């Protein structure tokens, strides 16, 4: 249990470190180079993980046709995320960036849930508004 908690917290920290490392590389070597290397190294490691995992490559390959085509667009959204993050990361505080991204995720999630599933989570809306309120307060303190 404790290990799982540490793993979850480390997952969050790794997002921020990756974003910062990528943006410094982008400043030194250019946006395209940094984004390209992010995918080149990520691709290599994910290939290693796939090979040592218990997943059958043949089975996945056979199933690929059954997945709707739009589900494959996630990878392209990922490229946009990495590229835009490379530009923004060095410009604003890491903490505000993390929080604003979270708020963007949260309210997009609430909107998708509402229109796709007809669910409106009051807890998420209320919690989200509190996060925004705390964020605005701290931004005000910084000014």
């Amino acid at each position, binding site marked *: 249990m404790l290990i799982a908690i540490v793993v979850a917290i480390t997952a969050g920290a790794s997002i921020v470190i990756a974003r910062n490392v990528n943006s410094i590389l982008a400043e030194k070597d250019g946006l395209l180079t940094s984004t390209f290397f992010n995918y080149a190294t990520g691709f290599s490691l994910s290939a290693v993980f796939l090979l040592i995992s218990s997943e059958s490559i043949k089975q996945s390959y056979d199933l690929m046709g059954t997945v709707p085509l739009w589900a494959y667009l996630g990878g392209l959204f990922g490229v946009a995320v990495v590229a835009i993050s490379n530009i923004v990361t060095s410009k604003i505080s890491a903490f505000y960036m993390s929080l*604003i991204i979270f708020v963007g995720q949260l309210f997009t999630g609430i909107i998708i849930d509402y229109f796709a599933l007809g669910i409106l989570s009051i807890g998420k809306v209320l919690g989200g508004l509190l996060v925004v309120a705390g964020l605005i307060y701290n931004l005000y303190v910084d000014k």
Partner: protein
Amino acid sequence: MYKLFSAFIGVLITIMILLNGVLSQKLGNYSSTFIIHLLGLTLMSFIVIAKKNKISFNKNIPIYLYSGGILGVFTILFNNISFNLLGASLTLALGLLGQSICSLVIDHYGVLGMRISKFKKEKLIGLIIIASGIVIMTIY
């Protein structure tokens, strides 16, 4: 302006997670991670070729600056492990805690050459409000 960009990144991430989730449900976590990176690398290769950009490994740059993609794969792996053991909402909340702590350290000490913005005590009030919001979301 950059704050707006950050919010837009959040929008993109949500759609990305949704789409990647469908892929990993059908094909498995590791197969989908591989395919997502393959597609990303293919797209980047096209852009690099189209722009006639020369990609070269720069030996003068410290090697750890090339670790972003490696870390990204570990993020997915760790999230998968946590998701199986703790469930979705706790994984999300703890991940956000990890992001916050890591970001505050980077801001305060200017780690990795980032601009320093020191932590002020007044900001604790804002942090408590933010934390309570996240707790409400997680419990509810």
